[in-house]
């Protein structure tokens, strides 16, 4: 559900409402049931349900019970609350950003030994960005559930109309800026690019991609100081300023995702978005390309994880199911049904992969992007939500023309250094 408090407080409420309601685990002679909490809807929900049914059919003594958690936005709070009420799910789908909070709780299972000791699990088959998102302080706490990344999605007809050559894999920031300027016509309510400007992580992660493209980093290697207030960070901010304030070629989305309608109606030329949006663009002949680059064509990925909770007897059956769920053939089946990207490199070598690409032509570039350009990741530290808030405000202020890039960076740096010092 999109209601925010719903998400958060549902979970907290479970903390208060103890044993009154029965949980999901049944018993029967020798049958164990494991519960999996997820926020899947539509195609993804159908796909996972049919996979679970398949598993249950083949494993009558190890049943899996899927429970819709009311929406992934609240999954973290709901999970935390379940720790207190005692009705913890065995497996939970969690945002990658939740891992540091959850890793601190004793109910969250450390999977390092399981991962390393399970024959044929092939941990390195998962993409580096995913593995990074499962690891906190060197220990593995999750198994990749979803991976995505940002790529350049553009409207071919608009490019044709303005006689601009399609973006290439070698596009520079200047190419990108010029194209946006030519595509834009604010008086006619047409824009060259859309940037989500609601000050949340949706804003921040796009800036991080720019920062990395300029060769910069968010934090110092030891993670104790900010490193983004650098020439690279400034260049990234400056580009945003130039495009949004000087050129006025950018549509600033307020978070209501109006950009989807606008792109679909041919009023925005280019987006930086992920595979999840492609299904909404039924009116547009779109192309997908790497993001423009400066030092690199870095992109950013937002992987999510399946995590195991609660020790005891359920751990083995839960791991068995999870292992099966993320095995190459099974996941490729899921990906083909939903359009989600493969989470293992080996999936791209399976015979079914060409059918997957045929069904979702845009995903080829997303996959290449993932392997080639998703090299850096956001730090898995507890302070990240606060850091994100500070950066979000900084980026917003530059995009709205309320602050100069250097000033915004300096202010953000001071605040973030304070946050890091207070750790």
């Amino acid at each position, binding site marked *: 559900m999109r209601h925010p408090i719903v998400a958060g*407080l549902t979970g907290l409420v479970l903390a208060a409402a103890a044993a009154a309601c029965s949980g999901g685990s049944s018993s029967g002679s020798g049958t164990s049931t494991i519960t999996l909490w997820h926020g899947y809807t539509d195609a993804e929900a159908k796909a996972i349900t049919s996979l679970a049914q398949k598993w249950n059919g083949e494993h009558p003594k190890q049943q899996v019970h899927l429970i819709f958690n009311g929406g992934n936005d609240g999954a973290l709070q709901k999970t935390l609350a379940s*720790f207190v009420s005692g009705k913890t799910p065995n497996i939970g789908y969690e945002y990658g950003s939740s891992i540091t909070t959850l890793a601190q709780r004793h109910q969250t299972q450390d999977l390092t030994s399981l991962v390393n000791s399970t024959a044929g699990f092939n941990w390195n088959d998962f993409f580096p960005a995913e593995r990074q998102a499962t690891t906190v302080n060197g220990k593995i706490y999750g198994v990749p559930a979803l991976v995505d990344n940002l790529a350049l999605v553009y409207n071919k007809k608009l490019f044709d109309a303005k006689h601009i050559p399609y973006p290439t894999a070698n596009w520079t920031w200047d190419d990108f800026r010029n194209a946006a300027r030519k595509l834009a016509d604010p008086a006619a309510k047409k824009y060259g690019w859309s940037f989500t400007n609601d000050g949340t992580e949706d804003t921040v992660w796009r800036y991080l991609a720019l920062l990395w493209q300029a060769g910069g980093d968010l934090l110092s290697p030891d993670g104790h100081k900010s490193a983004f207030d650098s020439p690279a960070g400034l260049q990234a901010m400056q580009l945003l300023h130039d495009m949004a304030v000087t050129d006025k070629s950018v549509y600033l989305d307020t978070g209501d995702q109006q950009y989807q309608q606008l792109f679909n109606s041919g*009023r925005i030329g280019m987006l930086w978005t992920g595979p999840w949006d492609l299904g909404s663009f039924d009116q547009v002949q779109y192309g997908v390309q790497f993001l423009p680059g400066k030092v690199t064509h870095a992109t950013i990925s937002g992987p999510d994880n399946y995590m195991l909770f609660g020790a005891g007897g359920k751990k083995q059956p839960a791991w068995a199911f999870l292992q099966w769920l993320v095995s190459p053939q099974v996941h490729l089946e899921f990906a083909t049904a939903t359009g989600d990207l493969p989470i293992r490199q080996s999936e791209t070598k399976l015979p079914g992969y060409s059918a997957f690409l045929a069904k979702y032509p845009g995903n080829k570039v997303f996959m290449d992007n993932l392997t080639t350009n998703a090299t850096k990741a956001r730090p898995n530290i507890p302070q990240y939500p606060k850091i994100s808030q500070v950066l979000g405000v900084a980026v917003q202020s530059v995009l709205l023309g309320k602050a100069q890039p250097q000033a915004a960076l300096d202010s953000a740096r001071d605040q973030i250094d304070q946050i890091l010092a207070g750790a």
Partner: protein
Amino acid sequence: MAVLTAERRNERHARAPRRARSADHIAGWAFTSPAVLLIFLFGLVPVLWTFWLSVQDTDLTSPGTFVGSAKYRQMIHDPLFWRSARESLLYTVLFVPITLVLALPIAVLLNQRVRGMLIYRMAVYVPLVTSTVATGVIFSYLLNEQVGPVNGVLSKLGLPEGGFFQDPGQALFSVVGMTVWGWLGFAVIIYLAALQNVPPELLEAAALDGCTRFRAFLKVELPLLFPATSFLLVWLTINGLQLFDEVYVTTKGGPLHATTVLVYYLYDQALVNFDGGYAAAIGVAVFLVILLVTLVQLRIGRRMSYESEASR
């Protein structure tokens, strides 16, 4: 005749109130207990619990540790808290009077005998049944700075376009506009009912005395609307100072904290930063502010009712 006698009786009343007898005390408690008991049982304990929570350091799911006034000290030194308090007060000071000032004339309008009045009343009532999500989406679209129709119309008329939700200087006012729109129906219903409750005899008497319609309104109906106004003043303030939903579905406290009102800041602390004790401290602050403002308003309301009765 009866009206004149009643007026004189009222004056006597206002001048020398009867001393309360024990039967009155019993009656008072008897009448109020059922409702009050239910309300206190489920309403008061949680309020007290919030006070308890505010002296702890807890993430709301693990047991907390007692920290005394640490959260309050943190609050006093937190510039964002003071910013959110300022935004909340600014918002309320605009939202409440504007709603009141618009609601009364509309209620009077809807009290006239005009054909199709039911349709008009329904129209004013409709915002109350429009979900917050839908309202947020619609206003976000209408007031969209770059592609919204309002700016489209403004520019066609040669007027300057507005930044609305995207402009830190205008965002809060845009939220005021959105919520006034949403609450007008409620205030109008209250005033309409109050107007309907005016005994026709009083208006007839005024007519007999030679009052014009307008003077009759001023002398008869307006004073009888004081309780309704007092109610709305308190009710709208309580709700105004607890603004949250509309901010969440439009601006998420932005841009640049321009719409971070107290309860939004509280939500942030509780469910993003997991600082339950701090959130509770903010909750206590909100409570105290509302309590203070309400007491003042009730006091004024009582004084005005007293005077209006005396002058009748």
